[in-house]
């Protein structure tokens, strides 16, 4: 019996250590598509799109939207807000009679079919396949985050199903030979840190802070961000020197030793790129270690501000630099609710859900907005027409997170987030001072504050 237990444990360990490799398959050449949309849909255009045209195909009873979410596991905290934000949009649309679907010339109710992949990429792959082949959904949305999106990309492409990607920013998802994907609510990871590396090479270097440490979690999201920043900082003529550059597993939950190792490299700037749990652990350990760096940048204080504030506290966040998302920087929307309206609707619907309101909640809602505009604009429900409709929104659709803009591979290059620094506000709150780019700035950076 003891031998059987040993064999079982051995097998479990081997399974846990192994990672499935997802092969990319060659696809047909990209189809060049023209624009179909000259701007966002106002009320008149919506009515025009909804007008019944002779010879239109018979409308289905509903539009089926396939989606994955993770209600448990390590990605639940970034996945559930996206799911609930999307669900809120679907419910609002259905309350108004559904979404305008141009090919059928009228409003149709939306049915959200969202399966729980439990943060398991293998389960996500199976369920993506199920949504396409069994549920035969009209529109397909990936789970949140790059790790769980990664498995859906090749499956959607194989089935020639257009994948609406809310927040999977890994650069590898977007290629010229894959027309079946678009990133909706986060900038692609190769572009997202642009303001950060520009800030480091200009204002920060001018302040004499030129030694940079990069600590990143080894996943598609933060790995790509780290690679982009590294490449920019190592470019010829860069005044910045990278003195520490290490990846850690995304499951890392203590950083005390890593902080000590970084301190040994004597950096002026520390960039810690991780998911929510990584940033919480890093900032807590930094605070408790007593180690100080002139500048510290992490991702999630600006993305999931409420969660970070609750776990790290006002003191732990004070002085930290982060992206300033729509949570703290107002973009006037031309489609959909404002931030305040959306937050109000969220609090009304999900106050007791245990899911924090943050950037990912907004991303879920914006995903819905893009879906709605796509349905109102597409010539048919054929997937390449759906793609054409999505791309026609590029550069024109303005939501509460800024301008939706795609490159020709479907990667999001609009909605760039400025760089901000956190300062205490009130007894236990915080506020962001936008420090870069100068056109958006609301104050000067204070180095040595962390």
């Amino acid at each position: 019996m003891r031998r059987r237990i040993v064999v079982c444990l051995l097998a479990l360990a081997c399974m846990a250590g192994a990672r499935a490799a997802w092969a990319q398959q060659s696809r047909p050449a990209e189809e060049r598509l023209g624009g179909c949309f000259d701007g966002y849909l106002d009320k008149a255009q919506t009515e025009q799109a909804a007008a019944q045209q002779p010879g239109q195909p018979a409308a289905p009873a509903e539009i089926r939207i396939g989606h994955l979410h993770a209600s448990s596991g390590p990605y639940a905290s970034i996945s559930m807000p996206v799911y609930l934000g999307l669900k809120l949009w679907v419910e609002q649309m259905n309350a108004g009679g559904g979404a305008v679907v141009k090919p059928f010339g009228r409003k149709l109710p939306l049915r959200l079919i969202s399966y729980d992949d439990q943060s398991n990429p293998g389960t996500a792959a199976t369920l993506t396949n199920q949504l396409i082949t069994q549920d035969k959904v009209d529109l397909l949305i990936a789970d949140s985050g790059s790790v769980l999106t990664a498995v859906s990309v090749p499956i959607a492409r194989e089935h020639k199903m257009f994948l609406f990607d809310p927040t999977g920013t890994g650069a590898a998802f977007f290629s010229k030979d894959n027309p079946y994907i678009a990133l909706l609510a986060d900038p692609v990871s190769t572009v997202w840190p642009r303001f950060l590396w520009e800030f480091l090479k200009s204002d920060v270097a001018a302040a004499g802070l030129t030694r940079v440490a990069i600590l990143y979690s080894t996943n598609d999201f933060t790995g790509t961000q780290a690679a982009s920043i590294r490449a920019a900082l190592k470019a010829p003529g860069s005044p910045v020197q990278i003195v520490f550059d290490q990846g850690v597993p995304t499951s890392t939950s203590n950083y005390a030793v890593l902080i000590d190792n970084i301190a040994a490299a004597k950096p002026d700037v520390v960039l810690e790129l991780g998911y929510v749990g990584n940033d919480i652990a890093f900032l807590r350990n930094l605070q408790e270690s007593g180690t100080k760096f002139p500048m510290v940048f992490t991702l999630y204080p600006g993305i999931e501000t409420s969660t970070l504030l609750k776990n790290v506290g006002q003191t732990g966040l004070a002085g930290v630099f982060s992206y300033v998302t729509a949570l703290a920087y107002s973009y006037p929307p031309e489609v959909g609710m404002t931030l305040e309206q959306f937050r109000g609707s969220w609090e009304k619907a999900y106050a007791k859900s245990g899911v924090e309101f943050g950037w990912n909640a907004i991303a879920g809602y914006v995903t819905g907005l893009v879906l709605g505009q796509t349905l109102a604009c597409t010539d048919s429900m054929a997937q390449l027409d759906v793609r054409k409709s999505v791309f026609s929104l590029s550069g024109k659709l303005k939501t509460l997170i800024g301008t939706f803009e795609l490159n020709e591979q479907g990667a999001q290059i609009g909605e760039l987030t400025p760089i901000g620094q956190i300062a205490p506000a009130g007894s236990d709150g915080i506020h962001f001072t936008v420090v870069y780019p100068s056109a958006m700035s609301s104050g000067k950076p204070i180095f040595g504050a962390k």
Partner: protein
Amino acid sequence: MLAHAILSGLVFGCYFTLVGLGLNLIFGVMRIVNLAHGDVVMLGAFAAFWLFALVGLHPLMSSVIVLAAFALLGLPVYYLVVPRLLAARDSEMLSIILFFGVQQIIEAIATIAFGTSERSIPGRVLGRGPLHLLGQALPVAWVVSAAVSLLAVALVYLYLYRSRVGTLTRAVMVNRDEALASGIDVNRVSALAFAIGVALAGLAGVFSPFMLGSATPAMGGDVNLAAFAVIVIGSLGDPRGTMLGGLIYGVALMLMQTYMSAWANLLPNLLLIAVLLVRPTGLLGRQVRRA
């Protein structure tokens, strides 16, 4: 860097000794594998979080309450589940399946009840600023957590080796049938060991927000893996081995983070595989059956 990594590893290892201790005690006495152990740790973390958030209770006070509450919780669970398991022909294998199901249920209920967001208790609650130990700066919260862990290990040692019921417990560990034949109330001894095991897991949970950054309903899986690595390194069923396993695990993890950080999460699996292949009984394996 090396000195800091080793010292941090020893402190971290003390905590992981506590994480593995309850699991090992239950396996040692009952020969059942509690795959829900990590989720009991998670429940302990949320108990401490809510006690702090709602009534401002200090984690050290919470640890006493959690110890008592989880021990009391363990008793009915034992009588509901374990005697039936032990009566089965293949109780060890059945326990893996059963507790895997329990783990899933606990995580699902916790997700519904607590949500998916991270929760933690401010580190300053256990003391402000770093503590300088042998020339190295360590978070006070880590040192306090390690001290509590060492205290718990010492109490378990006293229970096992300096008390009459501990002697009976060790007799059951050596051979359950012989203990039964010699008149020991095996069921009662096992129930007590099960309750202590659950209570130790709850206690480990109280300090997990300080050692692991934050707590989520999904944390149980990773905790389980580390706990299994710790007890397999030492030896299944031997609490002294758990201490050795915890320290080896902690130091190895910190050294991996220092010199091969990207591969650090492979460590529990590598240690498990290495020990199971080279010395399947664990480093103190010979002493298990003679405890």
